[in-house]
């Protein structure tokens, strides 16, 4: 390869002077000097310092979060090993630590919450975005958007003091009577239960679910709707075959976000789940989630192995939420383009 062939330098698209590599800068001495003078000015350094400082502080915090939690839980993983993941006993006095109960509780409450919130949320979003007249849709949408700001502690308080007695006396006895669902709902109707925790989580994530799905539905192109309508689709068929498939990616993102919130909620769940450290045999049984267990066990713990084991619960919870989020991202990325309005 002859090295001495002179090629025209590739000119990248530049937006600021400093993005030009030094070798390619205009060889006019004055400009060069001016540039150097500018760089030497404290103002430029200050601004660079602000930007890099901000990003640096953020990076340090993000790394510190992972390192500190990993470090604090290392002795727990060393002591319990992988049995931490699938042993169901949590008994500090016997130094037996297993998170299976909490992992199951977390997954079950989240599943209950999603089963309730996703259809209701998407249905509400479809109604508000596609079906309702504007005079009704606008105020209702604003109302639900505002509800997304309701703190989870308030939802938890309402669940604990209002829903618990209602569930104990009315809802749970009623559910036990339904013949086919007996497998899910059996045992004593106490009030605090995995089911109630799921319901509270559902109420908590509903506004987010509705708001995000509504945005996704509203983003579907008008031409898609018109095409479906022109093909003779009824009002509902336009929604079902054109709008919802078009908004699928956005709705899935909403579900992923809602799921992340449901998995990670701790205080509201701790208030209504009953905090029993056994694997729930029915949705009416009390249980515990990773988050609620941390809330309840960490208070009295300051040092030693138990502290490390509780922090290990946090690490498992982090891994679980990360897994769900990564899974959601992967799902969004690998899925073929939304199927659009194909029949």
């Amino acid at each position: 390869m002859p090295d001495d062939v002179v090629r025209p330098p590739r000119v990248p698209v530049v937006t600021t002077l400093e993005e030009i590599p030094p070798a390619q800068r205009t060889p006019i001495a004055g400009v060069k000097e001016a540039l150097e003078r500018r760089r030497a000015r404290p103002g430029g350094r200050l601004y660079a310092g602000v930007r890099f400082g901000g990003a640096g502080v953020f990076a340090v915090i993000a790394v510190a979060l992972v390192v500190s939690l990993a470090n604090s839980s290392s002795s727990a993983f060393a002591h319990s090993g992988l049995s931490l993941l699938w042993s169901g006993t949590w008994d500090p006095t016997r130094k037996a630590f297993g998170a299976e109960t909490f992992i199951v509780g977390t997954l079950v409450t989240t599943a209950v919450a999603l089963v309730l919130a996703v259809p209701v949320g998407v249905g509400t979003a479809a109604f508000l975005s596609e079906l309702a007249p504007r005079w009704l849709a606008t105020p209702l949408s604003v109302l639900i958007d505002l509800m997304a700001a309701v703190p989870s502690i308030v939802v938890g308080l309402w669940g604990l003091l209002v829903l618990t007695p209602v569930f104990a006396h009315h809802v749970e006895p009623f559910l036990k009577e339904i013949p086919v669902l007996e497998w899910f709902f059996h045992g004593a109707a106490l009030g605090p239960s995995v089911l109630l925790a799921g319901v509270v989580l559902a109420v908590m994530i509903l506004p987010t679910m509705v708001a995000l799905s509504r945005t996704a539905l509203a983003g579907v192109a008008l031409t898609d709707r018109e095409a479906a309508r022109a093909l003779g689709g009824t009002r509902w068929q336009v929604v079902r075959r054109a709008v919802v498939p078009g908004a699928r990616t956005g709705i899935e993102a909403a579900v992923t976000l809602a799921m992340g919130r449901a998995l990670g909620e701790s205080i509201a769940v701790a208030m209504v789940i009953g905090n029993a450290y056994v694997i729930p045999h029915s949705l009416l049984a009390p249980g515990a989630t990773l988050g609620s267990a941390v809330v309840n066990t960490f208070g009295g713990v300051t040092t030693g192995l138990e502290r490390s084991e509780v922090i290990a619960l946090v690490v498992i919870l982090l891994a679980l939420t990360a897994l769900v989020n990564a899974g959601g991202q992967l799902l969004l990325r690998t899925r073929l383009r939304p199927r659009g309005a194909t029949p």
Partner: protein
Amino acid sequence: MTGPTETAEAAPEPLGLGVDAARRREIVRARSAKSLARRRFRGRVAIGLCTVAVALSLAPLVALVVYTTARGVKALSVDFFTKLPTPIGIPGGGISNALVGSLVIVALGAAMAVPVGVATALFLLERPGRVAGTVRFAADVLTGVPSIAIGIFAYTVLVEPFAHFSGVAGSFALAVLMLPVVIRSSEAAMRAVPRTEWEAGLALGVRRGRVARSIVLRGALPGLVTGNLLAVARAVGETAPLLFTTIGSQFFNLNPGQPTAVVPLVIYTNGTSPFGADQQIAWGAAFVLLVFVLLLSVVARTVAARLSRHAR
């Protein structure tokens, strides 16, 4: 969902070439009328179900707010806002310390999160590339981190080493919670400022710091205000990050180096108490928190609308 089967099952009469034109037209008309009737019926059922869904999602939310308001208003009094809490189970007293404490802790948290977050957003805008991508990814991951994990993190770095619970640790936890929201919303707001305006500033020889301040930050102000207010509104109601950091207190305290009472913790401890008097306090605190948070989000939205109208 049931597209192809609809036509398949609706073919009782042959529609071949042997049928004469008039008859054929008749059959087709009958078929499409039947199909349309069925599709309309299905649509009506589905729309009915959607209406039920609206009722199902509004009912608990409205019930929650109405009930909290009804119970909360009863708890309000001058004492509620000015007095210190009474011992557990004893009626009377107030949550003045928690109201002030919450304001101090959240303000301190915002004072940490907003400058760092906005600076990081500027970094993301000015340095596109792999490093920025990593930072952005970290912000996205951090958004999904459960708040209890952030609380434990703050506990391990700011409480344990000093063997002392403090308001600062709580503020730090809230700042970590707010940071990703602040970063991403600020970035989005500043990205909305037209690139040409940056370039115009730079072409005039204005320093980059000055461009950032006078063009980018000024232009993105409505978005910045909204994003940051919403982040604060979220932080005010958070309980889990404060549980093991500010820990709560029975006393009036303005020193962030000390354990501090905050409203969410007041709701948690009083709400889980078996005494009616304590639960009353919890409802009052929940109502005040609810009003504050809703007001903050309303203000965030209207301020954004107002400011962006002025900017035009």
